């Protein structure tokens, strides 16, 4: 990995130094990845600045130099594994109740229960939510499954995480 990166002008945020997700290329290895970053024109505006070549134009043959600070690398398909790990870790010591308020939803869920399609409104909500996530956010569920497997396979890590 080098300390010099490349990105396209079209990817840049409107506001400088705001935290954003950006696709960048490692200038040396040509590896392309997404990261949470901050961008600035002046290196002094960032804590850990590294040169960033911003390419533009119809054939991307015009460029200008800016600076980038890498905060977190993100999985290429947009799943932030570190965030998932933090949430999974926090979940070990907090309540697992999910709350929401909606008269309409409650009526529909009770209908499903009283027509004997589900045993309880909680069960209906669990199954419907997981079914939706499996169909529409399978990447998120798969990433979470990996995190859970990692946690369950590492009791020492869990113990240490609990001490923190």
């Amino acid at each position, binding site marked *: 990995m080098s300390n010099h990166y490349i990105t396209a002008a*079209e990817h840049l945020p409107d506001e400088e130094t705001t935290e954003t997700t950006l696709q960048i290329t490692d200038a040396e290895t*040509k590896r*392309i*990845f997404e990261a949470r970053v901050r961008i600035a024109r002046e290196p002094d505006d960032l804590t850990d600045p590294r040169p960033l070549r911003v390419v*533009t134009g*119809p*054939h*991307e043959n015009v460029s200008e130099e800016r600076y980038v600070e890498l905060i977190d690398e993100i999985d*290429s*398909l947009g799943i932030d594994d570190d965030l998932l790990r933090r949430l999974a870790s926090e979940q070990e010591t907090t309540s697992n109740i999910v709350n929401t308020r909606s008269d309409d939803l409650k009526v529909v869920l009770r209908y499903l229960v009283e027509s004997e399609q589900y045993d309880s409104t909680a069960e209906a909500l669990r199954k419907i939510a997981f079914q939706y996530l499996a169909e529409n956010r399978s990447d998120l569920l798969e990433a979470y499954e990996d995190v859970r497997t990692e946690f369950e396979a590492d009791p020492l890590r869990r113990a240490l995480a609990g001490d923190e």
Partner: protein
Amino acid sequence: MVTDSFREYLQLLEDADDLVSISELVSWDLEASAVTTLANRNDGEVPIFESVEETAIDAALVGDPYRGPQCRPWEFLARSFGLPDVRSGTAYYEAVVDRLRSPREPRVVDRDSAACKEAVHVGAEVDLLSIPWPYIHQGDGGRYSNLHTVVAPDPETQWGHWSNHRMMLHDDALASLLFLAGEQVPNRYYYEYEPRDEPMPVAVVIGAEPAVQCSTEMWIPTGRSEAAFAGGLKEDPVDLVPCETSDLFVPATAELVIEGRVLPNERLDEGPFGDYFGYMNGPRRSMPVLAVDAITHRPEPRVPFCVEGTGVGYGQNSSSTLQTAAAGPDATLGLQAAGFDVSLAVPWRFTSRTVWVIATDRPYPGYLHELANFIFTTWGMLHIDFFVFVDADVDPLNPRAVLTAIALESDPDADFHQFGVERMPKVPLNIYQTPDEKGSADVGTSKAKTAKAYIDATTDRPTANGSEDEALRARAQEVLVDAGLSPESFDLLGDEGGESE
């Protein structure tokens, strides 16, 4: 000898001193492509880079292995198909068309006997960047694989559909594919798999045997299999083997196979890339994502690549040679099979893909328009702008003969025809449309359409009748006898020749 693997093909080149092995350390970052560019321009030997910097697996890069000599681009492929005595382009076309008339179904072999399965990496073991993919041109969006066969599902044949779509490597498990709507495999993804929210399984085959690489460049009729035409080309079935992670089959002797899924509703940047027009082409576009599930390979795989852009002008590279030596004979056969009196259909060698020259008889008025209409409506027309029709006795492989036909036979008023004005698709790689005209269509092709055209460079003079021909032949025989040849072998001499019937 017919070669059954890419490695045998390289050996064939080496045995004839047409391959140079470079053992010095070479960088994948522009250096391998720079050396290959010089070889392409200067008609040098095909370079194989045995020692590439920062390679996790011991792979070699091969620069434009299918490039043929500038004077006879088809020569190396003719040798690999066991046609070493074929010298002229016309003879090569006739021999290949003849082979393609007899397709041979492929043969499925066991995994244990498949060379491409000698190393198998699945799941977490997959590391796409362990292979020394070249960074080919300054300004490319990333490292590329661009000389390969993409195997995709085809409901009409169990062997799948084979085609070539450049692939930009992102990280250890992801790449983006240039899928231009209008082409067969991209259409299957955009209009069948993605609307069903279903990933499309594909395999990217790198370093396939020459017959496979050639059939990948061909336009095979719907319902037929490139695998069978590859078998016809070498007069022997191609060996296929099942993939590790899908129901697809891949050529068993390949150097390297990447198995994966093209994910629905996911996009990554693709490009810029210096493609076959000879110019950098950008900007980057959002293209479908290949998620890699498995990599299988031979020990020390040979990874071929093409320096696109060096096959214009007098230079040759793999893609320009494959157009001349594979796409041309295939198109010739296709037009003949459709009932047209075409003798040769040949891509113009200096700007491959954009212009084709077709030598044909013209049996009735309106025939050329009918022929043009057939081609424009049935071929993959993203790449081709126009055709030049010449008489059947003009050699389309001879640029001087073609330009002479255009200059002498084409009336600027009557013989330049436009077709489908502003309604025909055009690949966004072209440099005559502005970015605004190309647009940023969701499915990857040009938003703005363009026209197609053809030039009628066939002769408009009435064909000489038999009596004129005979008088000319008789006169020629008299001259030859006057010059001292024996009159016995001539059949049209008058009384003074003493031998006429």
